[in-house]
């Protein structure tokens, strides 16, 4: 076979494979979004891939069954935003300390963070829960947020990013101008590191927004339920056969993330391999 033809054949097969994989990736999500706009009767009658007009109706059913979606949104947003700020700030603070200064034990601390990334910290949730209950912090958002002060993955990422942007000359210039060390970090380095901080912020936000397990263990009052916890109640008997409403509840919880993703996918895709691969 001539090489040109062979190459084109190979390409054709690869594209076919990619298209099939893409359909597998997107169909479940598409069905979720479409079914959120279809009535329960329509859903039961058959599979459809075109949006319908019953979204408002589905939303009213959800509310009438006592699912306070706006409240869940507000709760999730509050927790996610605070977690994000705490994670980004302390991760960059720590990473900056490691990169800019020389101190005894620096290498050990660095290795320690690398090891921490590989340790399943979530398995200590039982101890964490009991400890929080002794401090009277269970059923508060504080218990969900506090651990993000020491995010090993965040430091890992921030270090990889800062490695490529920290400029010693700027730090020295700042010192000559009489800026304090913390002042240099806040006023000179942080603006320079903003794209990296933003990328880490997206990841922290998505992680906190989606986090089910910790909230499920630590939060008990229904008014404080975050979105994934509310979603989980959709499985109950109250919603039996209200398929349209269930799909709408699920869609509402993933749509903000889909929007964030399509707005900032460049940051996200470039951030995934950061730290794992040195480019």
């Amino acid at each position, binding site marked *: 076979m001539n090489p040109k033809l062979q190459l084109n054949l190979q*390409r054709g097969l*690869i594209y076919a494979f990619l298209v099939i994989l893409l359909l597998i*990736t997107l169909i*479940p*999500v598409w*069905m979720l979004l479409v079914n959120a706009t279809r009535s329960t009767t329509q859903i*039961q009658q058959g*599979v459809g891939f075109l949006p319908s007009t019953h979204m408002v109706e589905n939303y009213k059913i959800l509310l009438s069954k006592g699912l306070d979606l706006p409240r869940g949104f507000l709760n999730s947003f509050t927790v996610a935003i605070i977690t994000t700020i705490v994670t980004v700030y*302390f991760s960059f*603070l*720590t990473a900056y*300390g*490691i990169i800019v*200064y020389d101190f005894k034990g*620096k290498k050990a*601390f660095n*290795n320690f963070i690398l*090891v*921490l990334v*590989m*340790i*399943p910290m*979530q*398995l*200590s*949730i*039982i*101890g*964490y829960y009991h400890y929080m209950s002794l401090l009277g912090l269970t059923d508060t958002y504080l218990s969900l947020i*506090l651990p993000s*002060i*020491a995010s090993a993955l965040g430091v890992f990422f921030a270090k*990889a990013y800062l490695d490529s942007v920290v400029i010693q000359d700027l730090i020295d210039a700042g010192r000559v101008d009489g800026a304090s*060390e913390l002042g240099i*970090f806040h006023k000179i380095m942080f603006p320079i590191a903003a794209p990296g901080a933003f990328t880490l912020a997206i990841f922290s936000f998505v992680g906190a*927004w*989606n986090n*089910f397990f910790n909230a499920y*263990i630590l939060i008990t009052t229904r008014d404080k339920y975050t*979105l*994934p916890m509310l*979603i*989980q109640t959709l*499985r109950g008997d109250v919603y039996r056969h209200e398929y349209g409403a*269930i799909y709408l509840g*699920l869609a509402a*919880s*993933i749509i903000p*993330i*889909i929007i964030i*993703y399509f707005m900032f*996918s460049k940051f*996200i*895709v470039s951030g*995934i*391999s950061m*730290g*794992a*691969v040195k*480019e």
Partner: protein
Amino acid sequence: MLRKKTFKINYGYVFITPFIIGFLLFGLYPVYHTLALSFTNTTMLTGKDDFVGLQNFIRLFSDNTFITAITNTWQLWLMNFIPQLGIAILMAVWFTNVRLRIKAVGVWRMLFYMPNLLMPAAIAALFFSLFSYYGPVNQVLVRTGIIPEAIDYIRNPTAMRSLVVFIQWWMWFGQTTIILMAAMSSISLSLYEAAVIDGARDWQMFRYVTLPLIKPVMAYILVTSLVGGMQMFDIPYLLTDGRGSPANSILTNMIMMYMRFRSNEGHIGAAAAIGVMVFIMTTIVALLINYLLRDKDAKVPAKEVRR
């Protein structure tokens, strides 16, 4: 002058102190506290907290459910990880191949990665709906005549296991592809050119140039995926009744830990013992893999490899 020097603060410590305090209070202490609880019969309601030695662990190992949970977790993880890595390697090779010149690589990988960001709780509920008895999957399969009558997937152990494996694969293959692509495109082109001059074929180039150089990144993917896999909870928990049904087929470590934690008398000690065992198992395996796959024959300096 000398006096002033001894008073100078090393700012490195100032910058890392918040992390260390945060870690001690909210990272290390909970681990210690979990370990301490695992030797007691602490419950939520009665306020008992007597030291019972190794009783929780002895009970755990004589309980077949625990062995089932451990085996399940490993199986569910391995069955999604192997095809995930395979497909990701294949796609990363295609996407970075200069001869193939696949179009719109950025768009493909962006779309393949999307499921990873979606809320696992919602994804589990979505697949539960799709595969329910009167759900869309049965509708399509029955109407097109592929199966004669609807299948009750939710009560079928093999179907549920396959579904958990599928969902995990579906959520993660895009991420693995992106990381491998970054690793592959950081390999210098001159290495491939040299291989072509030596008469190497596609497969030989992959085997002797690409593979050794992406080994550290593969170790990273393997370890992070393993650590995540051993803590698998949301998908199997929310896909069925939260007890790993049908017939314990998707009962994972974390589900079992959660069940002990929320059992009628809330046996925190027994739940902590599960956490401790899985913690030890995962950490040992993760560090072992990291040690075995450490950089022996690649030419990259060791320091870079560990990143």
